[in-house]
């Protein structure tokens, strides 16, 4: 008998373990990818040895972008200084650029400027000088990565300087640098991945939505569970119908409506249309149905208002449902992509999914940074799930099994 039991148990555990490994491997790989930099991503399939662990990917997410790795740690500050100098008419940076140009390079700049032709792939001497004087190696390469045509600007600069570039032209060069390059580098420096910003945006939108949805949905669910009133049946049918019809039908006119209301490119456009969750109303109705009517009657005897009954009795009684709905609603808001993608245009307002997608476009080759962003993006839901696990599973299956 025991041998037979083992005969079933061993393959059972083997299959389950294999499935578990298959499910968890991508997650482990994700975690490993976040702590490897550059080449190590390829050298090690999973985690590198402890000495090779690196926080670079996370630094890139929160520090200023690719530039943070250069000699100049405080790149935004430097750029601000350059811009201020420019506005104040101080010729500091460009004069230094000119000084850094070797006679050879000056000759080359002048020659290139005279001919007016620069091969696109050619490394311009001006670039090298700028690189050096700003203390940012690879400035132009990084600008390229950022999608900023800085090299184009330098070539344009050489064109504008025209022929006969002499030592006395430092002033012209200076002005050109200030006019063309500095604003662009400032833009570049300011354009780091505002990942912290995305996180805060997402947290704000998700938490606000969850609170509003929870209040209105539980209030509606309470009415549907504990009152008899005209139109109740109609409301229930309408709710069922809403759940059957895919939301994409309304996408276009809803966009039009939000546009007319002036909620475009604002959090209002994300929060307001979803203030009441039909799913939530069903969920709360389900749990409040089981609440004995005597409780409410006792409350009424004591002179409690109807809202008081909801607030002091019905809501506390359905605590498990609050947990379940919290998680479902938070997940829905946190992971929402299509609607924010339509509504939000300013990168300062981007939520995590939109911001991460944007980032993937820019850093398509920097897998480590992408994975670090992804890991941070999934953490809040994971943490919430650990806290609310029990409520969540029961809430998820409540409608299916009992209903």
């Amino acid at each position, binding site marked *: 008998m025991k041998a037979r039991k083992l005969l079933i148990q061993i393959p059972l555990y083997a299959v389950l373990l294999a499935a578990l490994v298959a499910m968890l491997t991508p997650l482990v790989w994700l975690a490993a990818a976040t702590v490897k930099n550059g080449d190590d991503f390829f050298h090690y399939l999973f985690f590198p040895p402890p000495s090779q662990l690196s926080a670079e990917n996370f630094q890139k997410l929160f520090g200023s972008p690719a530039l943070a790795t250069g000699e100049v740690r405080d790149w935004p500050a430097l750029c601000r200084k350059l811009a201020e100098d420019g506005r104040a008419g101080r010729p500091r940076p460009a004069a230094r650029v000119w000084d850094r140009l070797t006679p050879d390079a000056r000759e080359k700049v002048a020659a290139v400027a005279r001919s007016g032709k620069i091969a696109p792939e050619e490394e311009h001497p001006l670039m090298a000088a700028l690189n050096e004087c700003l203390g940012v190696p690879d400035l132009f390469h990084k600008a390229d990565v950022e999608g900023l045509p800085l090299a184009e600007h330098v070539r344009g600069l050489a064109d504008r300087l025209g022929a006969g570039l002499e030592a006395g032209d430092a002033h012209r060069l200076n002005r050109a640098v200030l006019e063309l390059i500095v604003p662009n580098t400032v833009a570049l420096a300011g354009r780091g991945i505002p990942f912290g910003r995305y996180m805060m945006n997402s947290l704000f939108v998700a938490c606000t939505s969850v609170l509003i949805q929870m209040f209105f949905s539980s209030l*509606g669910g309470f009415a549907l569970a504990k009152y008899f009133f005209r139109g109740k049946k109609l409301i229930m049918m309408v709710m069922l119908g809403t759940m059957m019809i895919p939301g994409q*039908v309304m996408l*276009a006119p809803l966009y039009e409506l939000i*546009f007319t209301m002036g909620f475009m490119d604002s959090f209002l456009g994300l929060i307001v249309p979803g203030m009441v969750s039909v799913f939530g109303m069903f969920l709360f109705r389900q749990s409040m149905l089981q609440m004995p009517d005597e409780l409410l009657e006792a409350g*009424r005897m004591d002179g409690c208002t109807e809202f008081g009954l909801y607030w002091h009795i019905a809501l506390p009684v359905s605590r498990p449902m609050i947990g379940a709905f919290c998680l479902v609603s938070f997940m829905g808001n946190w992971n929402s992509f299509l609607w924010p993608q*339509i509504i939000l245009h300013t990168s300062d307002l981007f939520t995590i999914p939109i911001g991460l997608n944007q980032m993937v*476009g820019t850093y398509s080759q920097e897998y480590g940074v992408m994975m670090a962003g992804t890991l941070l993006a*999934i953490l809040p839901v994971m943490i919430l799930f650990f806290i609310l*696990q029990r409520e969540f599973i029961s809430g998820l299956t409540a409608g299916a099994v009992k209903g």
Partner: protein
Amino acid sequence: MLGSAYYRWQHKYAPYLFTAPFLLTFAVFALYPMAKSLVLAFYITSGPKSQVFVGLGNFAFMLRDPNFYVAVKNTAVFALFSVFLQLPLSLGLAVLLNAKFLKLRNAFRFGFFSPYLLGQVFVAVLFSVIFAPRLGLLNRALAAVALMPSNTDWLGDPDRVMPALVLTALWMYVGFNMIYFLAALQAVDKDLYDAAAVDGAGPFQRFVHVTLPSIKPVAVFVVVLSTIGSFQLFELPYLMLRNGPGPEQAGLTIVMYLYQKGFEAGDLGYASVVGWSLALGVLGISLLQMRLAGTWKRET
């Protein structure tokens, strides 16, 4: 103390006040848009401001647009794999997890379920890297066991895009659907098994004649839910294929088609037509599924 007139008033109107937020938002953000999309469907629009009446022109154009059929085909193939590959695997896992003597059941359950928590957007970003040529996990794993060279471009090859999508969705949703099956299995009346055993039914017969009929309502629910979800597929391919339909439109889905036409090209009227086609199609398929399962009568 509150006046008794107020007390009577609030008692009488409480249910209406409590459902008012729902009714209001429903009217403004669901009923009105739905009616409006019926109207919009007859117009060609350019952004939210300009409109030209075209009657059934949008509909006719859609039926003549080969891309629409590509989108429908891709979405349907994806839905078929969801129902016929993913759900049986979910059920299988649930049956295994339901074994009486199993230890660590909750740990397994959480492990299988966890990918669902990531959400489609982040799963898509993760798997776009997993499927990457040379550096990606899948290629390196396959190369390690010498099945394939490591430079297979899964998401760049039209023939491999759909398998990649199906595999990703399988990873993400198999545990999610398993939860439903497991809950249903745990709710099956144990006496039925005993009775069947007394009648001499083997494990397989018990599964077919006791388990399956008992979990049928949940199974139908999961099939319908899974089909509806599959037809709304968007984020997974859109992000995995770098904000587009992929090579030779191999990852174009109906919702992505709607998004392209409505919001990238700016024709909200056309998007409404596509939206209604999707809604009616999904509704039809769901009803058909429930009908086939014979639960239609019980649902109404």
